[in-house]
């Protein structure tokens, strides 16, 4: 149970502090934390008998929880911090949190802390639910040139001098009234929203002129939005609260509010599998062959629908799958096991959520989706040439194809071992796509693009030829230059060797200057990555584990509407899909 929560920036300055248990001084604990904190400190730090600090580092921020006295529930605190970070990201509609966005929304954040934690006992950390409690405008910095396209996903109005556009409030009022047109859902376009607003504006002001604004240009629309907000502010303040909603957290189904309505009832189910693969190509040993799977759903369904999803792995009682699968809280875990027909039954939360995550190990003999069959470095020293050849093949159904495929071939090692002469052009050839040479980070990028599936029969290969430094020739040329009156031969295109030299000199300098700590951290990484051939690909309509959704049934006993379930499969390469080639 936390006593105080802090959010700190990278310089350990306090951005937010929230006193949960009436601790007399907020500054004393954090001052101690600053002393104890170091870059290698474990996430739990103990300060004598007084406090325990638990923290996580996300983006550039530190989330610190101070636990004083006896209480020792660490897991909760850590998990809470983790969840809280996610909630913040969702709430603020950003991918990466930074200092500014936190300070801009300090009141909102402290309110969020207040709702999620009650005298130290954690309450809710579901951002969808919290949205019903806390309807405060998110204050995002203005993005230049983007002011016209207001993302439907971010609730922001980019101008904070105007009264805010409380999207949640709008939503809410709809629920209250129940009869008013379509609910503006997450994926809905701005247009919808504007129409909606104009309709209501008409009601409030009775001014038909306002409607004209809706059909004008985008810029006008935005202005209109602001005007409308202006007008509606008054009305909203009275409709601010809806005590119905507050009950959701204590009802059996705490993740879904009542009274949700959509005109078109759709349910999207995405099966996303990330394959992690690591092979030591030099020794022919496979070190990792894992699947990180996830079923992500987007739910735009009215009322309280009951969904049944049948997954072939569960029907077939795949032991490994059952053991390594984690479900969202909406899935009744007990029913999953005891029910006679083995489908996943649940009442979904509104909007986006992750139904389940699973981790599967693949057998060593299972071929990877994209396999490196051949990698060769052929030095032809007599001709002063260095050839690099590689071949890949695919292992998935022939009807599928990768939508993107890119290979990153590090060549730093080659540059170290051989004296490559970049003043002569490199020659490259590939069966498909293009080969790019990244001179600053020393790698070749082979962008293959689409490659169809197969079981070893579809192969693509590429080759690159570097020129090696030829001392004799160089000497001869130098000699020629000295003696002849002709100007040196004209060269077109970028002078790679000079660029290379320039960049890598800088590198060396950088290494020297950086602090020892940073270097210490970076070094192993850079070294490692220079030996790894990594692949980045995406194969739609296919799962590498063979997981399949047998059926998806949506039932809403009261409303009985027609619904549209959509199922999609994708296999992606994980961050680590690599071959050790040197």
């Amino acid at each position, binding site marked *: 149970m936390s006593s105080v929560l802090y959010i700190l920036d990278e310089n350990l300055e306090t951005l937010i502090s929230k*006193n949960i248990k*009436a601790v007399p001084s907020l500054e004393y604990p954090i001052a101690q934390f600053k002393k104890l904190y170091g870059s290698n400190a474990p996430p739990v730090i*103990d300060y004598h008998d007084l406090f325990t600090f638990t923290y996580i580092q996300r983006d550039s921020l530190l989330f610190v929880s101070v636990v004083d006295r*006896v209480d020792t529930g660490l897991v909760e605190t850590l998990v809470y911090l983790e969840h809280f970070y996610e909630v913040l990201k969702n709430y603020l509609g950003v991918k990466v949190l930074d200092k500014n966005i936190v300070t801009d929304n300090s009141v909102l954040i402290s309110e969020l802390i207040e709702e999620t934690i009650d005298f*130290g006992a954690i309450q809710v950390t579901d951002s969808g639910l919290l949205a019903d409690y806390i309807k405060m405008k998110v*204050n995002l910095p203005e993005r230049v040139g983007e002011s016209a396209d207001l993302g439907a996903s971010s609730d922001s109005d980019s101008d904070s001098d105007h009264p805010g556009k409380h999207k949640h409030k709008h939503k809410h009022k709809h629920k209250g009234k129940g009869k008013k047109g379509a609910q503006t859902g997450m994926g809905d376009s701005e247009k919808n929203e504007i129409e909606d607003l104009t309709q209501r504006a008409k009601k409030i002001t009775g001014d038909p002129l306002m409607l004209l604004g809706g059909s004008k240009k985008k810029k006008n629309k935005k202005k209109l939005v602001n005007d409308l907000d202006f007008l509606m502010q008054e009305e909203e303040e009275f409709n601010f609260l809806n005590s119905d909603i*507050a009950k959701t957290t204590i009802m059996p189904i705490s993740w879904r509010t009542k009274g949700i309505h959509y005109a078109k009832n759709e349910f999207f189910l995405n099966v996303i599998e990330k394959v992690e693969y690591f092979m030591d190509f030099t020794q022919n040993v496979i070190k990792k062959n894992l699947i990180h799977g996830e079923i992500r759903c987007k739910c735009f369904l009215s009322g309280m629908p009951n969904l049944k999803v049948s997954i072939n792995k569960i029907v077939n009682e795949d032991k490994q799958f059952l053991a390594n699968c*984690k479900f969202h809280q909406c899935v009744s875990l007990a029913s999953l096991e005891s029910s006679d027909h083995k489908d996943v039954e649940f009442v979904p939360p509104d909007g986006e959520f*992750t139904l389940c995550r699973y981790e599967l190990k693949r057998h060593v003999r299972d071929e990877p989706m994209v396999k490196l069959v051949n990698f060769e470095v052929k030095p032809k020293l007599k001709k002063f040439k260095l050839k690099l050849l590689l071949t890949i093949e695919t292992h998935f159904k022939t009807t599928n194809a990768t939508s993107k495929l890119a290979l990153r071939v590090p060549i730093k090692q080659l540059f170290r071992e051989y004296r490559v002469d970049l003043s002569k052009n490199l020659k490259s050839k590939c069966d498909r796509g293009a080969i790019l040479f990244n001179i600053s980070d020393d790698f070749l990028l082979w962008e293959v693009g689409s490659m169809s599936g197969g079981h070893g029969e579809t192969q693509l290969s590429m080759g690159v030829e570097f020129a090696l430094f030829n001392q004799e020739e160089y000497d001869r040329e130098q000699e020629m230059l000295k003696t002849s009156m002709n100007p040196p031969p004209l060269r077109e295109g970028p002078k790679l060797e000079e660029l290379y030299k320039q960049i890598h000199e800088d590198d060396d300098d950088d290494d020297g200057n950086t602090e020892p700590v940073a270097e210490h951290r970076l070094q192993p990484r850079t070294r490692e990555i220079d030996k790894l051939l990594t692949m980045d690909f995406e194969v739609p309509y296919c799962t590498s584990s063979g997981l399949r959704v047998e059926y998806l049934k949506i039932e809403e006993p009261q409303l009985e509407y027609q619904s549209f379930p*959509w199922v999609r499969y994708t296999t992606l390469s994980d961050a680590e899909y690599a071959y050790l080639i040197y």
Partner: protein
Amino acid sequence: MSDQRIFARYKASEIRTDLQTIDVKKIKSSVTKRKHALRKIIANLTLGNYVEMVVLFPDILKFWQIEDDLEVKRICHEYVRTIGALKPRFVIDAMPSIRNDLRSNNEQLQIMALETLVGIPFFKFTDEAFNFIMTMINKRSSSPALMKSAVYSLLQLDEWDHERVMTLLGVLHGIFEDHVGLPTVQVAALKTLYTLHDKTKNLKPLHISVDTALDLLGLIPQLNEWDVSNLLECLVTVVVPQTHDDSYDMIDIVLPQLQHVNTSVALKSLEFIVYLLNYVDEISETVVDRLSNSILTLLEKPPELQFLILRNIILLLLTREKPVVKLEVSYFFVEYNDPIYIKDTKLECLYLLANSNTLPQILDELEQYSTDIDIQMSRKAVRAIGNLAVKLGAEAAETCVDVLMNLLEFGVDYVVQEIISVFRNILRRYPDRFQSDVRAIVEYIDCAQVAESKNAMIWIICNYSHLLPNYIELFEVFCSNIKSETLDVQFSILNSAIKFFVRDPSPRLENMCLRLFNFLTEDVNNPDLRSRAFLYWRLLSISKERVDILTPEVLKEIVDGELPVIELNTKLDQNVLEELELNIGTVTSVYLKPTGQIFHTAKTKHLKDSPVLNSEKGHLKIIKQDENEGPKYETTLENKGVIRQKLQRNSTMNDYDRPAEKVNELKGKRKSSTNNASKLARKPSLLMRKFSLKKKF
């Protein structure tokens, strides 16, 4: 536009003008500006600008009365709470406004007001809070969210007025045993009670009956994730199973929770199950499998959580002789981008997991780490190899030493130093083996630069001098540098010199000793070292002058006695282990020390006595699945279904003596029906949908 300027130190007067100028006009835009000014106040409080902000109290009070906006209210409450925590008496004027909010019909406002009351350590506020809570409890009909807040607020009130909270314990008992109450409120009451009992020294630990516990566990489907986590946490040691069946029933109910996506819930269920295992005589292998699997999936988390999980794995490995979890070693292999604390913890796990089967695999990994660029890491890896050699017995030590010898050729300074240090430990564990390698080690004498490796080197030279023809030369190098050595190296030089002399009282060694004595008794400032030198000196002179008192044999025994064989002692005290195990997921797991040692005020947890308590942890049997009987997994599931439906406890026992085949038969039928179901699913309309899927995206 960014609100950067909110977050700056302001003078009270500046904000006041902000607040007042707008007061005149009643336009909408002024509302936002006013809010803006209020936000500045909160920002300044965060920045610690209390002195200025205190001045604004009257203004705040004024706004409180006229504004209905929830955000303004929130800011007012926040203000009072922050200032109130520092100067409780100062904010007493806010009382009427708080009381007003408390009586409003808005639940959120009421909760806010209650929190403010509780947050200020002043008796008038505390009294008000108590009154409110009492009326609420008596009314019974109050809203659950408010009720829950009130129950949790007792935790805080306990700090201000302990006696009064104690009088309410009975009420809390009533709430969670009350079946009509809402589940969350029940859990809140239980959690509060549990924490209060835990905090108060003279209160007996909380105890609830198995029936109540089962009722509460039955509520799990209706609870939100955090409540489940709280519930499971509270039940450990609070409920004591009286029969084996009690435990089995509870395990069955909690098992599915291991698969919860919330790490906290998953880990708490693990803790609860591990606790219950103390009250059963045997468990099925499936349970072990599921425990292990859930732990391994938990490892796929952000590093901070991963760290915690790893610490808990250590705890589990330590506490049970026969581990209740089966973990594959490869999960604990260090990745290059792991943070240092994870690398350390993984090494510890590897060390604990090592046995003769896994040793080759682990050694392979450790050898790789030893050549790591990261100096710390490679030293730790070498150390781990050495410890494994000491831990696992002679056979294993052989392979470990081979690896070490290979690494020696690697020749990097710090690796060699570390090898020298661990090699001493290996020699102390197996004095007679590995003598052939001593010479190879001593060749690296120049590498020993750090005190520890020097010490080790001196020890090796001294104790294996019979293998080294030139040991005196080697040793003299150390002797001549004694001035610049650290204290412990000086000690070991002294000790070794005496040993050499006792073994072989040649004039050369006598000279050396005398030189040492002179230096140590005259030039050294450390009294310990000096008196040690005097002691030896006197000892030697006595043995020389009066052989009748101190014969050379006796002297040899005193100075150069047989060293006991060392053992790596990983076994902790039984009681400590017990307490550790009951504290999975807490601070204890990080430090691997009992709570009492970390927090002196903490109560220790103990396994409570029960007829079925296992006296020794090793007695737990793990039953393998019997193939003839059909998978046991299924049958337990069947049983669980029964429990779910009827919530009747003894169902496991009833089922137990029934023939198993019948259950299986039923199982088979059901299975076939599911197959039909999936075929049914391919109705034309559904098929159409299936076909149309691809195009949509």
